């Protein structure tokens, strides 16, 4: 089985738990089992909250679902909205949307990509990149960036705001919008709205290009660290359109192996139940998907920006394609697998998103008023989209009373479950060199997880929550050491294990 997933025995091993992982969406916990020589025998990322959202959806009328599923996520509600709508298109037999509906959905989706990627890059990743992976924890966040680099922080805020504005105009509201409905969209865009959205685009594109140059400089300045941090090889899955180009809204799924050779050149996503399987492991609520024909040990894969830029043949927008080629050059002809490359790929996709938006805003179809179609009613629908974090699958069955009887959601973070576990094993092996739990080790592990921008849940956000706690526990369950970062960012140590 997977190296470092299961220790042969827990006798005599010490347990380190990082609970919860900070600056990821929701609650995660990392545990490490170490022996007396401080060698790692087991490393796991646990998901400690069971969502149960699929049960919440069952029994609801199908037309309600695209709105309800937005509540799954505070960051990418539009991805759930559109994936559910694509599935419900199939339910009502809407095989081909009108050009206006198709393009308005694309606009909404790429607005979502831009806002989510900007939020991650400027809010969550830039503190590590700009302030240093080992800088003081109390400063290593967006407020610290705003203090030291106010211009970059402001750019991040305005890029994110722009993506949100697009969603607002197309969906009608920033949250709980009803822009997409089964069979199309329910709101046309006005010329005034389009012109408003066109105004700031050249400036935003320039800023994002600056972000790409920033990441590239980090890789060029310190290649030994950036190329090797959390490094592991894996299969990759992403969506491509008919000509092999990257497409984040619709296409077939392509899977490549770690060396870049195709496992599936393409498969129709409606056949995912025949291609993918999900494995349950007793120590995590989150399942482990894999390609059935390869088995769980060899068939796992990663999704998201880094996988997408390498499963496609090209990005169909010139600036982003040039940036992609530039990034892939660090692999010297081999696929790029370093964990921190996710940040580079993510900001390239933000540029692609802005280029697509620019092209859509110049398209006269966007202002059309023919918004919906209908077809022959079906019992089952599958909708797949490339959410900011990767492939997102929505699968529903609907009875003759229009109620949902089955709902299966495979979200991007679930696809990346094995990849994130493998990344923390790689980082822990590279950076745990002392018996004392150090803040540096915690942050390196968190950095590896954060690179995937996981969305573990839409946690409730009562004020004063989200401490970080690390426990060192022996095999008998005796606590030997506790390091706690409270909600004020302060560290407290109750004991020191030497």
């Amino acid at each position, binding site marked *: 089985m997977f190296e470092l997933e299961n220790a042969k025995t827990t006798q005599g091993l010490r347990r380190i738990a990082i609970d919860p992982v900070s600056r990821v969406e929701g609650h995660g916990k990392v545990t490490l089992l170490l022996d007396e020589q401080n060698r790692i025998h087991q490393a796991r990322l646990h998901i400690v909250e069971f969502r149960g959202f699929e049960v*919440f959806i069952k029994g609801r009328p199908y037309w309600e679902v695209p709105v309800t599923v937005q509540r799954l996520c505070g960051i990418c509600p539009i991805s759930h909205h559109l994936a559910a709508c694509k599935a419900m298109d199939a339910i009502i037999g809407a095989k081909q949307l009108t050009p206006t509906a198709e393009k308005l959905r694309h606009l909404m989706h790429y607005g979502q990509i831009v806002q989510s990627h900007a939020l991650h890059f400027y*809010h969550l990743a830039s503190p590590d990149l700009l302030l240093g992976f080992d800088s003081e924890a109390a400063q290593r966040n967006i407020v610290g960036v705003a203090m030291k680099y*106010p211009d970059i922080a402001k750019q991040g805020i305005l890029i994110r705001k722009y993506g949100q504005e697009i969603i607002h105009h197309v969906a009608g509201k920033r949250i709980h919008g009803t822009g997409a409905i089964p069979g199309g969209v329910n709101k046309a865009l006005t010329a005034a709205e389009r012109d408003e959205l066109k105004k700031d685009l050249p400036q935003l594109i320039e800023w994002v290009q600056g972000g790409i140059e920033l990441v590239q400089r980090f890789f060029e300045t310190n290649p030994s660290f950036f190329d090797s941090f959390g490094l592991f090889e894996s299969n990759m899955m992403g969506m491509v359109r008919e000509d092999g180009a990257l497409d984040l809204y619709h296409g077939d799924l392509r899977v490549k192996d770690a060396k870049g050779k195709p496992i599936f050149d393409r498969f129709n996503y409606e056949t995912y139940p025949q291609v993918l399987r999900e494995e349950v492991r007793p120590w995590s609520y989150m399942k482990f998907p894999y390609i059935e024909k390869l088995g769980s040990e060899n068939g796992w894969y990663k999704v998201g920006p880094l996988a997408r830029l390498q499963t496609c043949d090209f990005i169909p927008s010139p600036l982003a394609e040039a940036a992609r080629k530039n990034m892939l050059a660090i692999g010297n002809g081999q696929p790029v697998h370093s964990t921190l490359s996710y940040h580079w790929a993510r900001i390239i996709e933000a540029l692609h998103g802005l280029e697509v938006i620019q092209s859509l805003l110049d398209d006269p179809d966007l202002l059309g008023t023919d918004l919906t179609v209908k077809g022959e009613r079906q019992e089952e629908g599958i909708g797949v989209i490339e959410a900011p974090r990767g492939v997102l699958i929505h699968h529903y069955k609907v009875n003759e009373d229009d109620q949902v009887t089955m709902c299966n959601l495979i979200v991007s973070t679930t696809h990346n479950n094995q990849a994130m576990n493998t990344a923390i094993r790689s980082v822990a092996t590279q950076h745990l060199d002392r018996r004392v739990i150090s803040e540096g080790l915690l942050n390196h592990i968190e950095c590896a997880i954060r690179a995937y921008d996981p969305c573990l849940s839409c946690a409730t956000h009562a004020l004063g929550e989200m401490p970080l706690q690390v426990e060192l526990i022996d095999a008998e369950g005796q606590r030997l050491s506790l390091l706690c970062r409270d909600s004020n960012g302060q560290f407290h140590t109750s004991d020191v294990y030497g």
Partner: protein
Amino acid sequence: MAEVLLTAWGNTSRGDDALGTSLLQHLNTWALSSGMAERFEWVEDFQLQIDHALNLEGKTLALYIDAGQNTPAPFSFSPISPFKQPWHTTHAMPPESVLAVFEHTFQKPPCPCFVLCVKGEDFGIREGFSVAAQNHLGSALIFAQKLLKNPTPEAWRALANLSPL
């Protein structure tokens, strides 16, 4: 442009987590019927994020409305400041960090800001409020109407001293 910002956040599928947004909606209905709605900028979202700092630009007063698990019943109301010891959190931010992002990014202090936090009991996946939360919401609505009738920092500071907390 409205000079007073009202921001609420929460998830309507997480039970009492939606207390803040529900209170904002009730307030908006009441303000519309009273002809006061245009005096305020109304912002509702799932979570507070970095771009909410932009809403503070040009404001003279701001109220952030949330649901709280450990909040004293029925609600708490207090002034807040930019958070000097930055926060480690998820994608979401506490209001103090939004203020800090505004302060450092725009190189000026934010306007006087307050948090009204309504106590919730059940934050599980479901729709609707717990019985206790419904009572807290009613009390908070009466209190918030007093705030909106007199939207000045001085009046709000005086009410903060009289609030249940």
